[in-house]
């Protein structure tokens, strides 16, 4: 027993010399999390990180059986769903997990927005977060095509057509992504490469920077909390207090996801037919539904502009307000702060209304 404990102490010392763990621990103990009525939103980033790990793990497992060919892709998913042990579970976990992740990212985005967490000195943290959301949606878009079923085929067709409407570079960009004039093997190969190699590298690099900045600047405090007198402010240690609660929330979220996956496994539509008509009731994933519904309502011509181009430009400009927010609302003007909040409410309401409308129309 004594020799064992001395061996453990020795190992600890060996690691300490090389990894300087105590310094890292001191740093972690210094970090504090403010306690207030909005503290629950601090968990969103952590849940997103956990879900991302689930996506990486389930994605790697799916690659064992998936072959990115137009003759094989659909059959591979059918095989994973019906013949491979627990295949249905991991495939469903990946699909449900992706949707859950985007939902949590939106919650993270809007909670940070309404708590004005984008203000100095967190402008770059905010913008890196927006880019991470963009990358996550690109994951969704490229991954959607991979099962090669009819809905995914036409959703990709529409998505690439929207991209091609962008002035100057649009057609070129769409052709690069498509790998030719029509969606086919080249598109599937490219989307697969983007989904499993290019985007993960980009995401990991950017996520590293995002998390580093969160550590550097600490947790953002909402205005109502900042205004309190020092003795009325309360904090808890990030390590181990908040982290343990974080882990508990992760477990709850993971269990909720597993229950969803088990009770409602993700299906697959009929194989894509590039020459058949678009299927009835075709809709994109819910996180593109608002744009989809909005484009449905835009007339063919809006003055001198083509309807869809005007619609896309309008949506882009409106969403770009999120990028501009930290440079407009710097915390020095009540009016600007209020305008930024109203913009956020309008954006959120617009997204909810158009998404629900799109889902039921």
């Amino acid at each position, binding site marked *: 027993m004594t020799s064992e404990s001395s061996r453990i102490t020795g190992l600890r010392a060996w690691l300490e010399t090389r990894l300087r763990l105590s310094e890292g621990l001191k740093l972690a103990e210094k970090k504090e999390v403010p306690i207030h009525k909005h503290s629950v939103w601090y968990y969103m980033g952590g849940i997103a990180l956990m879900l991302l790990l689930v996506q990486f793990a389930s994605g790697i497992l799916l690659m064992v059986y998936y072959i990115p060919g137009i003759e094989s892709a659909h059959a591979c998913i059918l095989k994973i769903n019906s013949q491979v042990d627990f295949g249905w579970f991991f495939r469903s976990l990946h699909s449900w997990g992706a949707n859950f992740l985007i939902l949590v990212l939106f919650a993270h985005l809007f909670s940070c927005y309404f708590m004005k967490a984008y203000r100095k000195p967190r402008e770059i943290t905010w913008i890196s977060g927006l880019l991470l959301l963009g990358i996550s949606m690109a994951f969704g878009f490229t991954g959607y095509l991979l099962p090669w079923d009819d809905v995914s085929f036409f959703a990709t067709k529409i998505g690439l057509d929207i991209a091609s409407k962008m002035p100057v570079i649009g057609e070129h960009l769409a052709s*690069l992504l498509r790998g030719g004039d029509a969606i086919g*093997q080249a598109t599937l190969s490219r989307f697969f490469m983007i989904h499993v190699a290019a985007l993960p590298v980009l995401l990991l690099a950017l996520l590293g920077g995002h998390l580093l900045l969160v550590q550097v600047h600490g947790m953002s405090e909402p205005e109502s909390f900042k205004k309190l007198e020092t003795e009325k402010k309360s904090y808890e240690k990030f390590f181990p207090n908040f982290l343990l609660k974080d882990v508990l929330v992760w477990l709850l979220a993971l269990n909720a996801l597993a229950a969803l996956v088990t009770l409602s496994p993700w299906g697959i539509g009929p194989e894509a037919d590039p020459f058949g008509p678009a299927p009835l009731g075709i809709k994109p994933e819910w996180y593109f539904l608002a744009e989809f519904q909005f484009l449905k309502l835009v007339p063919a011509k809006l003055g001198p502009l083509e*309807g869809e181009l005007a619609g896309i430009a309008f949506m882009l400009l409106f969403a770009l307000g999120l990028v501009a927010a930290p440079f407009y609302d710097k915390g020095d003007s009540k009016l600007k702060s209020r305008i930024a909040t109203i913009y956020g409410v309008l954006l959120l309401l617009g997204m909810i209304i158009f998404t629900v409308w799109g889902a039921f129309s």
Partner: protein
Amino acid sequence: MNEQVCSQKKCRNLSRADFLGLAVPTFAAFWTMMAGYPIYRYLLPKPGEGEAQSKVGSVTLGAVGEVPAGTGKNFRFGSTPAIITHTEDGEFHAFKAICTHLGCTVQFREDTDQIWCACHGGCYDPTSGKNIAGPPPKPLEPLKVAVVDGKIVVSQG
């Protein structure tokens, strides 16, 4: 240590640090372009790739009876999806089945007697291909239809 750089009227000192400060980013930009260009060309699809071998002048669809009056049918015209309609007046009409809104493949709806796009609800006239409702900005691209020896032959419009 300092070199003098003279333009026509002004002279200024360019230190080694200034020179390097200018040279390194310039070199990096050139290097990035040099490395990026082959990657870009590698990724760029050849014009008409995937379409060249399947471009066709005409397609024979089958017997006239296969598309009864008041119906329509999607078919493959080379590498393009196409649609034929048989209107109640007994005429055949064919179009490229690519919706002019966002490129989805359209279909004939017997309940409304229209060509319809499931993606955003665009409607076209089954006789002329004219856009009549929804977001499409232009009519469908027409194809020629002829009946030869009791068979429907569709060719480029």
